[in-house]
């Protein structure tokens, strides 16, 4: 029985690692802040969760809600953007990972994508584009949705809960 379980886990790891290298993924987290005047600011951090080198992330395309007005956009150094009411396309100007380029290398992240809207927008759909070292003429496009960064209170509560669970289990074992 143990042998069968080990084989299944091994296969899952192999499959998972293969899919990571073939289809790099990104994670975009944001911190939501309400400013004066009903303006909502979103500070995005883009994580390149690819594993294999060369899959540098160079383009982030956010789909905006048409009834929400984009008031201001700020992007990190080396990045620019083209935006209108229903989209923001922000992209790296210099190909390659730092220090040569301004792309986001696999396993790295980049903050400084700050957008302001006239109302709360929450999670947004996105497309990201990775350089494709295996087929440079066909970069890889992946889609996803932005997610909020868990608040410290949430983390503390979670930690407290886990600690509480551990403490309760220990007391049960001791008794």
């Amino acid at each position, binding site marked *: 029985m143990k042998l069968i379980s080990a084989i299944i886990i091994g296969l899952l790891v192999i499959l998972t690692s293969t899919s990571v290298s073939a289809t790099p993924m990104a994670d975009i987290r944001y911190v939501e802040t309400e400013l004066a005047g009903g303006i909502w600011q979103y500070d995005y951090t883009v994580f390149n969760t690819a594993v294999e080198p060369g899959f540098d992330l160079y383009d982030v*395309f956010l789909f905006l809600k048409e009834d929400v007005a984009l008031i201001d956009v700020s992007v990190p150094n080396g990045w620019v953007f*083209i935006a*209108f009411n229903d989209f923001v396309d922000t*992209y790296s100007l210099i*190909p390659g990972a730092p220090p040569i380029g301004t792309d986001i290398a696999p396993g790295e992240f980049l903050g400084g994508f700050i957008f302001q809207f006239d109302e709360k927008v929450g999670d947004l759909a996105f497309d990201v584009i990775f350089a494709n070292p295996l087929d440079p003429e066909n970069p890889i496009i992946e889609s996803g949705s932005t997610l909020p960064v868990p608040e410290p209170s949430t983390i503390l509560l979670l930690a407290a809960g886990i600690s509480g669970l551990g403490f309760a289990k220990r007391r049960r074992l001791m008794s």
Partner: protein
Amino acid sequence: MNLFLKELRMKCRWVVSTVVLCSCLLGITPIWGYESSGLSFRLFADQDHPDLKYIRGEEAITILVVMTNDAGVPVATKRGFSEIELHRTLTVTDPFGARHFLGDEQETHKMPMPYFLNGKAWEPAEELPKNWVRSAKIEDLSELVPIMKTTPGWYTIQGLQFFARYASTGIDSDYGFLGMLTHPNNWKGAIESNTLQIYVAPMSGGQVRVQVVDETPDPAKPLGQVPVKIFKSADIPAGSTLETTWDRIPPVLLGTTDFDGYATWEASSRCLVSDNYTVLAKYGGEIKSESVSRTETGWANECTGNIAKVMRFVEKVVEVNIVISGGAYNFPQTATYRATFSMDVSRTKGVPSGWLKYYYTRTRMNFVSTGITEVSGTKPNLTIKGVGTVNNVSGYSFEATVVDGSPDSFGIIIKRADGSAYYSAPTKANSGGDLTITVQ
């Protein structure tokens, strides 16, 4: 009183009858000019003009009118022949058949003082001896008949005897002697006739052919229904503006252009004698001017010349201010890779300005305009041209097509400095965003 006058009249009749009777007896019987057929009129013209051809308005038409007593006996007149009277013997028939009579009764001439008896003149004003000759020289007949200055053609000049009238001496002082004493024999090289036919020839000149065109398109487009006027430059006061000239100076020719842009003149004679002229044409509230010089080639004798002038107008296009703004994206090559673009381009008073950005995700081509050189077309299809950089390298030009529709469309061609295509994205419907064309 009446009895006295009646008696006096009887006495006068007796005196006159006695004088006449005595004269007859003495063999110097005069005849009365009124009844005489012996007075003849002859006209003389300068023989130096072949076929009596005069150039219109340039040469003086000199005529000598001569009255001669050919009766063989003296002719007694109660009224002499003044220069005006001699002029009155003439009639001029113009090329259209209209007759013109000469002379002006307002002019007065001194009369010889007759013999008065009881306040009444009874003596003849003048007795024309046998072979009496009197003449009047008309220096320029066209001064008396102005049509000869302007209208070429055949003119007939006749001397009509019935204009020799009696003088009513002392009663009508408007008539009397004031004859010229130039004998025709002193007028060398003259043609003599009672009726002269002369030809007034057109001057050196020609027809001025004026065409009005709009030079905006290539080739130029003729402009019809455009009023055109030709003025004698001498008629235009110094300092006159084109508007003033157009409104206030009488033109020598007035016309309107046909569908080929050529002016058709309203005047019966379209000939212009060689001179300095100013041609004006008015189109779209603007007046343009062209000069026709006396010295330029094209004039010819007898107005057979041709001079062509072209009046060029630039069609005034109502200036349209255009603003093209917005951002959008589409998929220019495949359904996979997106191109995003945004712009804020305008054309104000014909001057293009603004910026355009274009980014193609697949090749990471980042185009940023550095100058807009042209915005053309009409809404909803506009073309934007300009120059810019590709990935921060300069030397590229672009031509973008924007269609403000449903959905909007966009296409762009980016060329290298040598004109070869570097990148081409056909005009395709946008998948998102919005491009707006505003025309003011």
